[in-house]
């Protein structure tokens, strides 16, 4: 009986291929959007996590912060400065490296080419803390950092853009009107979790950066790499103690800086992407609703068109429930088809996106099954009213219907 009904529904869908397809489009788009969003979202989260674990779980990041995160915006955070760095460098026994860095996106020019790159001013410890080195040439030296010499190392993307296959060593590039000699090319790092190109970068001595680019003495970030085998939690505690001393914060005063290790940052970023995914998913959900209304509409048309058929079926002994089930199954089959096409579309979209953004392709069976179930549910919910209308027809009137 049920198989019979499904066959009947398939036949009815096949009879109006174009109409069925147009009806499905809403569901297809909705399901495709949800599947693509969630798949890309979980791929991004995965990417963020692996990126950050690559950075090393022993890396701690110190930043200036308002004492109370939910507090008033009138309070501006006290910037980090040389004294903070000196204090940490002197006071921390468990640190492998303590590095001060400031960063900004700046237009970089070479010849006729120009590119907006992340420009970082820092010291030699930075490369130890971030476990980064040069592929060609050399890093800048302690003395170059002290004197703030106009030298820089560039990322692979910048090298490609300016020099192609040529040798960048010793060439001068212009960073915000400051001329700067290229001494090395960094190892490639690829894209970060947010799709940011980490190789689109120029790194130079901090003093040079502060003097010629930022125009102030501020430090944005202090990176502290804990010595191997030392718990980051303990290092984090030590950093907090030293920072409070250096900044002369009263015992009952709140921190005006933040210390976080990479796993905390990873979690924060992951939860941010999850929120984004959820919001986009909700938007896609609305299009599913619209798709459902489309199904309801076409089922009403179908019931009206087939009034006579319903009359015949009722006359020869169909129950109300037979007619109800027939149209419900039809709506469900229709919407299920839409769901399946949508899933295929969505996964294809996600695969394309993960290829072009170089994030992992992370399809989830649970999400796919959920989409299948949900589209079937939509068919049932939105098919119910039209089906009921068909089932409640009076056989005499229905037979007379032209």
């Amino acid at each position, binding site marked *: 009986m049920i198989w019979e009904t499904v066959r009947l529904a398939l036949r009815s869908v096949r009879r109006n291929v174009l109409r069925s397809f147009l009806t499905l489009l809403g569901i297809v788009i909705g399901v495709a959007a949800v599947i693509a969003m969630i798949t890309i979202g979980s791929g991004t989260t995965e990417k963020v996590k692996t990126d950050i674990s690559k950075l090393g779980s022993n890396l701690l990041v110190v930043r200036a912060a308002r004492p109370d995160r939910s507090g008033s915006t009138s309070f501006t955070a006290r910037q980090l400065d040389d004294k903070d760095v000196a204090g940490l460098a002197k006071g921390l026994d468990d640190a492998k490296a303590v590095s001060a860095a400031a960063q900004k996106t700046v237009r970089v020019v070479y010849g006729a080419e120009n590119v907006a790159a992340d420009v970082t001013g820092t010291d030699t410890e930075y490369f130890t803390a971030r476990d980064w080195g040069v592929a060609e040439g050399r890093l800048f030296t302690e003395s170059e950092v002290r004197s703030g010499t106009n030298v820089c190392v560039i990322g692979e993307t910048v090298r490609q853009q300016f020099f192609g296959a040529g040798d960048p060593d010793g060439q001068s590039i212009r960073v915000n009107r400051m001329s700067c000699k290229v001494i090395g090319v960094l190892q490639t790092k690829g894209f970060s979790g947010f799709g940011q190109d980490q190789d689109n970068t120029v790194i130079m001595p901090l003093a040079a950066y502060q003097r010629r680019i930022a125009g102030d003495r501020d430090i944005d970030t202090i990176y502290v790499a804990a010595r191997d085998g030392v718990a980051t939690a303990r290092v984090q505690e030590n950093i907090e103690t030293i920072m409070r001393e250096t900044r002369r914060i009263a015992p009952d005063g709140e921190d005006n800086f933040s210390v976080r290790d990479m796993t905390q940052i990873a979690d924060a970023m992951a939860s941010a992407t999850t929120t984004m995914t959820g919001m986009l998913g909700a938007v896609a959900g609305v299009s599913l609703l619209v798709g459902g209304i489309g199904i309801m509409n076409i089922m009403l048309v179908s019931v009206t068109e087939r009034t006579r058929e319903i009359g*015949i079926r009722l006359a020869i002994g169909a*129950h*109300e429930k037979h007619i109800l089930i027939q149209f419900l199954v039809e709506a469900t089959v229709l919407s299920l088809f839409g769901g399946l096409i949508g899933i295929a579309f969505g996964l294809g979209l996600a695969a394309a996106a993960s290829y072009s953004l170089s994030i992992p392709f992370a399809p989830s069976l649970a999400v796919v099954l959920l989409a299948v179930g949900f589209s079937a549910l939509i068919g049932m919910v939105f098919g119910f009213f039209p089906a009921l209308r068909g089932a409640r027809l009076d056989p005499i009137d229905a*037979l007379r219907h032209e």
Partner: protein
Amino acid sequence: MLASPLLAFQDVWKTYGRGEAKVHALAGVDLAIGKGEFVAIMGPSGSGKSTAMNIIGCLDTPTAGSYRFQGVDAGRLDRNRRAVLRNLYVGFVFQGYNLLARTTAAENVELPLIYRGVPARERRERAMAALADVGLAGREHHTPSELSGGQQQRVAIARAIVTRPSLLVADEPTGNLDTARSHEIMELLTGLNSELGLTVVMVTHEADIATYAQRTIRFLDGHVASDTSNLEMA
């Protein structure tokens, strides 16, 4: 009056509308039809014959009075119970054939068996047999658009008898057919009546078609105007 009628009207009223606009389609009809009878129902339009037909076929219920069919008070049953009754005991043949379009003859004939829950294989066999009975062997897989009017009506008759009903209700079964085809269909119905003992109630407005029946009931203004046996007249 017959000893054990298949169906019986007792002071049946059917009223449409209310107040001033009230119309009595049937105004106190008494009527009984016995097993194995072939009855023609005639009358001008608005005489109540279609209403009577609908009640006889358990498609409709009387406003007042009782309608007994197969020994049950069919006039008091709800629509789903009447659906069961129709499925088990009544076969319908309509003027416009009322076959499902783009559906083969065999599938059309199988339809009432589906609602009875008969397994697919048995359904197919019985549909084939019914189609053979109406002289359509070899046409089982044609769709209505590939069949002539007479053939379509034969499919409809096969659909009506495939459940082996006790009553066949035919509403102007020859209304859309030419004379030759009409007489063929009537021969078929008479054959089913005499060979299977199938009770046939047929609405027609053609006198020569009515002569195939053993009994003619004429309706006028919601009443039975005359009830005559064609056998006695012959």
